[in-house]
């Protein structure tokens, strides 16, 4: 069955949600539909006539081209998962199908590729598998700069890493990013919350036990260290590790061996340790509740994650990130937050850090039917806080600080635009923000 002659093929192809493009035998793009423009961020006018790899910029463009394979082997490819990079620097996961194009004589005259945006599926999968990379860490503030600078080198080394920071600053996300950037990424990442289990149970969970070690120990059970062999173990809340287990962990860090409960032989395991805590381990050492030798063994590479108060300029980016994510997960089309909401969020202290911001936005998503999130969609304590804040008299320094934060909010966190608006230099803004952070901490 063929299409009726009065129906335009362009109109049909432009109406579908999948991207479609065609190339000639020289790999020049000859057709680019509306969805292709939307997904790639490149207009059809810009794309036509250019080499497909210059437009598509995918993970298979150099050496693993699906179209080239189709044309060479005269067969189709379906549902291959790859990613492309848009002109705004976003990596978009897509699935592609490719096929050769023939003329009426049956000669190959080019190829056609269709592709589908997998962003939503990717977000869901990431949520389930918790497979995060450094590209999932949102933020461009000075406070994150040092960490970003050393993260790839830290990840590729085998050194023990200690991550500290307040609750909700993303310690586990960083641990996962380090693991997924390391050469151990194809081996397991095992997470243990040292504060969540009683001492005896934690010991058997970490190091395993032998049959007969205690009542009900009918058969051998491998510990988390054995399960993580070749990979990484993430010890969360390391500050809550009992002193007796601190000795066993220290022994592992020194000798790379463990001894299961009730066992007589040591087992050699190759595991990288990443530990995290929101406690001050240095102070715990002074108080005698944390072993000094273990502290130094863990503290080979120390990453201190800044609180959200110290990286307020990242708020607009983080808000956009969560809105995008919630839109996908809750099938909504919220466009963003209103200026008033942004101003409230910029002033708020976030004792629960990024996790609290996420919860606030999740709450707002429940109440907001569409468009922009308004003040009335925020949790009540934030609405009250904004009213209280309006009535409280402030010092001159606080008023200055507020003006800077408000301007930063108005300019979506863009520092240069804020400087232009306030007619101050970049250095003055930096100094002002540092003073604001200090004030917020007090």
């Amino acid at each position, binding site marked *: 069955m063929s299409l009726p002659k009065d129906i335009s093929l362009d109109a049909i192809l432009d109406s579908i949600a999948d991207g479609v493009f065609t190339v000639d035998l020289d790999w020049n793009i000859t057709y680019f539909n509306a969805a292709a423009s939307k997904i*790639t*961020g*490149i*207009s059809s006018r*810009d*794309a036509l006539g*250019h*080499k497909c*790899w*210059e*437009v*598509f*910029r*995918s*993970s298979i*463009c*150099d*050496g693993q081209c699906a179209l080239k394979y189709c044309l060479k082997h005269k067969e189709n490819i379906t549902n291959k998962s790859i990613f*492309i*990079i848009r*002109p*705004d*620097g*976003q*990596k978009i996961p897509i699935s592609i199908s490719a096929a050769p194009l023939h003329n009426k004589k049956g000669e190959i005259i080019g190829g056609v590729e269709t592709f589908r945006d997998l962003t939503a599926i990717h977000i869901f999968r990431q949520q389930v598998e918790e497979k995060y990379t*450094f*590209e999932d*860490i949102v933020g*461009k503030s000075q406070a994150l*700069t040092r960490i*970003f*600078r050393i*993260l*790839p*080198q830290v*990840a*590729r080394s085998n050194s023990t890493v200690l991550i500290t920071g307040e609750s909700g600053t993303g310690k586990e996300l960083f641990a996962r990013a380090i693991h997924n*950037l390391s050469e151990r990424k194809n081996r397991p990442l095992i997470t243990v919350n040292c504060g969540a289990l009683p001492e005896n149970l934690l010991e058997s969970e970490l190091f395993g036990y032998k049959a007969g070690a205690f009542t009900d120990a009918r058969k051998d059970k491998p510990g988390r260290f054995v399960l993580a062999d070749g990979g990484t173990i993430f010890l969360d809340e390391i500050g809550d590790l009992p002193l007796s287990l601190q000795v066993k962990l220290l022994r592992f860090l020194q000798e790379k061996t463990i001894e299961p409960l009730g066992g007589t032989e040591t087992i050699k395991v190759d595991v990288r340790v990443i530990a995290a805590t929101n406690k001050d381990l240095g102070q715990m050492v002074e108080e005698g509740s944390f072993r000094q030798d273990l502290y130094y063994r863990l503290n080979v590479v120390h990453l201190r994650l800044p609180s959200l108060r110290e990286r307020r300029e990242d708020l607009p980016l983080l808000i956009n990130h969560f809105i995008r994510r919630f839109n996908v997960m809750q099938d909504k089309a919220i466009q963003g937050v209103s200026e008033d909401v942004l101003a409230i969020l910029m002033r708020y202290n976030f004792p629960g850090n990024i996790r609290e911001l996420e919860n606030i936005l999740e709450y707002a998503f429940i109440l907001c039917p569409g468009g922009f999130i308004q003040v009335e969609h925020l949790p009540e304590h934030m609405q009250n806080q904004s009213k209280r804040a309006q009535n409280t008299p402030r010092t001159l320094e606080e008023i200055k600080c507020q003006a800077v934060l408000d301007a930063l909010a108005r300019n979506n966190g863009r520092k240069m635009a804020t400087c232009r608006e306030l007619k101050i230099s970049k250095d003055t803004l930096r100094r002002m923000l540092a003073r604001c952070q200090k004030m917020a901490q007090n």
Partner: protein
Amino acid sequence: MGGEKIICLACYGERLAAIIDNASHFLLFKLEDNEIYPAGSISLPSRDLPGKISLIKSCGVDILICGGISGCTIYMLQEMGILVIPWVAGTVEQVLSALKDKTLDKLAMPGCEIGPGCPFRKRRRRGRFGKN
């Protein structure tokens, strides 16, 4: 641009790679007194991006010229003090010639722009009364 600079081209075959993740080798050049001299080639056996970033840093690269690149990777490289000039397409020969002539903006990938921070593009003169 004062002093000696190391320029790195992220290549695939005879041209720039479509995205830096795919680069099969880095071509290094020395820029001295506005002259460009070859300074070596490094083949990249794996497609591992963090490894490439570490390599760029350890080679003392000052300027990276590449095709597509994620915003996060640009940020990470910039934080290492490297000037990143992304969204460039063309053969190595075309890129080198554009570097000499300061016409790199003409090699921008479709739908992309090579920003005003790039030292290898001529400054556009505006008329006395602005654009028109």
